[in-house]
């Protein structure tokens, strides 16, 4: 049994934001109380040994749930695999991660869904939940066997990485997915408008001579999918929203009662197009970093609930792939290990975002939307938790990363405020920044 004493519990699911004592037993939260005595605790332990953690000055919150990660297995294990990715997850404070379907082969059958799920169980770190494709082979035409894949453990359906260009296929997907109750996740990118662009179209792309991707490449698909979700009354989740126009469209659709949720990636909240350097591909990401105005709109949208959740879009690549001229390097930022601390340092510490909202958006909302266990520390809930030390300091170094990937803009940067203990179902999987 674990006894966390005087720890600042942040649990928006129960509107708790105050110092408490927390008891963990048999993999579950046993009790949360304003304070407990030795007598209370030993009574509840029923003879079991008690590990006591002094939590003063630290935060305890439900383990983060990341609905958008690329774990690359099967097929691209040189970039990442389910073991390394789920280790990176718990090092970064994530206890549940959803694995995107654009692997090789793509996850478009129950057998593959079960493979990913089982690899996650064998790894034994974060809960790994597979996302299935929407269409066979991610070809954008025929729907997958959604009901069967749900039986196998699919948490959602998405052709992420490719957009479903055919609006009728998207409409049918929203209709058919009702059989499963699971959301369709839209990648939100018009292929023709995006073209072979490399960064957001704007003054910075014009100056550097990097082909631009207009903001409309995202927003026209956001608009289309909102209209389709409204018409079908289907369940839509919009991935990696990056433009002010998209935020506006979502806000209006929500006001009309459309069943939609949306996510934003940490890098879109922290960086903008002007941060991109021609000879450094680390910020080459899709959707591309927007303008400062986009970034402000995203933060506002996250604060007012238009954007429901934060998701990393963890996109690991090898150093060889990223060490190329800008046009030739793949899109993506690896972020499972750094995202929480980056958001803490860049948004929470300066007062742009409350920690309560971060936990709500990165744990409570994803659990609710995708029907997952977790996202709460209510007694009886699985003890998926993070102990966060706002004073802990670390310099992000390649040697310390447990992900296979090094493509993070925070290499060499010094962070203050990191997850120092992580439990998955009451089992300690990370302690003092080391994955156990």
């Amino acid at each position, binding site marked *: 049994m674990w006894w966390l004493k005087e720890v600042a519990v942040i649990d928006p699911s129960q509107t708790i934001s105050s110092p408490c004592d927390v008891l963990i037993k048999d993999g579950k939260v046993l009790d949360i109380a304003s304070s407990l005595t030795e007598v209370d605790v030993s009574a509840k332990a029923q003879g079991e040994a008690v590990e006591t953690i002094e939590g003063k000055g630290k935060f305890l919150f439900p383990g983060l749930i990341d609905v958008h990660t690329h774990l690359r297995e099967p097929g691209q294990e040189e970039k990442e695999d389910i073991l390394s990715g789920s280790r990176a997850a718990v090092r970064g404070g994530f206890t549940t991660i959803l694995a995107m379907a654009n692997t090789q082969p793509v996850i478009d059958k129950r057998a593959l869904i079960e493979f990913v799920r089982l690899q996650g169980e064998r790894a034994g770190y974060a809960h790994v939940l597979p996302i299935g494709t929407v269409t066979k082979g991610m070809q954008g035409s025929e729907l997958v066997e959604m009901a069967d894949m749900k039986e196998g453990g699919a948490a959602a359906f998405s052709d992420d990485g490719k957009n479903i260009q055919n609006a009728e296929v998207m409409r049918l997907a929203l209709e058919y997915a009702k059989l499963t109750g699971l959301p369709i996740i839209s990648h939100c990118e018009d292929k023709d408008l995006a073209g072979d662009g*490399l960064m957001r*179209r*704007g*003054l*910075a*792309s*014009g*100056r*550097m*001579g*990097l*082909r*631009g991707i207009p903001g409309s490449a995202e927003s026209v698909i956001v608009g289309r999918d909102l209209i389709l979700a409204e018409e079908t009354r289907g369940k839509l989740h919009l991935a990696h929203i990056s433009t002010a126009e998209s935020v506006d469209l979502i806000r209006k659709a929500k006001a009309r009662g459309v069943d939609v949720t949306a996510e934003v990636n940490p890098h879109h909240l922290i960086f903008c197009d002007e941060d991109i350097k*021609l*000879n450094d591909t680390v910020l080459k990401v899709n959707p591309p970093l927007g303008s400062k105005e986009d970034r402000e709109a995203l933060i506002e949208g996250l604060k007012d609930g238009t954007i429901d959740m934060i998701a990393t879009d963890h996109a690991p690549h090898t150093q*060889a792939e990223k*060490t*190329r*001229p*800008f*046009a*030739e390097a793949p899109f993506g930022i690896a972020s499972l290990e750094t995202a929480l601390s980056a958001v803490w340092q860049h948004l929470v510490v300066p007062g742009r975002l409350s920690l309560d909202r971060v936990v709500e958006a990165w744990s409570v909302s994803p659990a609710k939307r995708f029907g997952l266990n977790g996202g709460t520390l209510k007694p009886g809930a699985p003890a998926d938790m993070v102990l966060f030390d706002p004073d802990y300091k670390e310099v992000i170094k390649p040697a310390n990363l447990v992900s296979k990937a090094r493509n993070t803009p925070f290499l060499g940067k010094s962070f203050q405020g990191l997850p120092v203990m992580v439990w998955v179902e009451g089992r300690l999987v990370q302690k003092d920044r080391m994955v156990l």
Partner: protein
Amino acid sequence: MKWQRKDILGIEDMSVEEIRQILHTAKAMKGILMRPIKKLPTLKGKSVVNLFYESSTRTRTSFEMAGKVLGADTTSIAVAQSSVNKGESLYDTAKTIQALRADLVIIRHQSSGAASFLADILDAGVINAGDGQHEHPTQALLDIFTMEERLGDLEGKNVVIVGDVLHSRVARSNAWGLQKLGVNVTLVGPPTLLPVEMASLGVKMSHDLNSALPGADVVMALRLQLERQKSGLFPSLREYSQLYGLTTERLKKTQKQSIVLHPGPMNRGVEISDDVADSVDALIERQVTNGVAIRMALIYLLIGGSSNVVA
């Protein structure tokens, strides 16, 4: 002034003094180039590698000649026009060149930023001979050199650059360089080839060539990539030529004896008519000659060491 830079990657971050020094050196180089026996021992024992990922006859030949006149050994690494996923990565090629102990590498590459990527890896100097849509510094320098030869000091002069500005590294480098020298630059093209983000270059923009021409001392036509029509960027060569082609009639609107430049190769009858291309005010061949002088100057400044040919 002692030359400090290891590489020539772009004009954007170059100082006016550096540009002046290059132009001054190029003047001496042109004198050497015009001699009947044009061979110097200055760079004897130095090796210059040409690494061209895009086909280019004139720029590559120009660099080769520049190196040879100065006495350097020039080598061309033939890079097949292969897709980026095939063959050796630029990183590995750079490591190979490093091991070959080249003194200077001239690179042309289809990706913006490729020259600076190479320069970060190599101890040897790097000259950017065109990187994607980013910069083509030697072209801008030879254009400026050519303008100064005819017009003298360029401060306050008016230069109109017309064509596919969006995809043009020549336009970007010229816009940076000319602004630094106090020139009024106007970029002209249809909205699809001169979109709003080109305001980042900080110069005037217009979609109407006729109204941009009055007072122009220099009119520079950019090469139109004919395949842009297929991507829908303009409807036809006919309409492009009607709106943006340089003709004798249209050039009268400058109300000056303006000079005409073109980086070549020209699409005669599209961006420039035959009679303009062959007129006395078109300095297109002179640009080619001056190109060798500018490249000699740059090679000399980068690897010439303490030898002094520019007394």
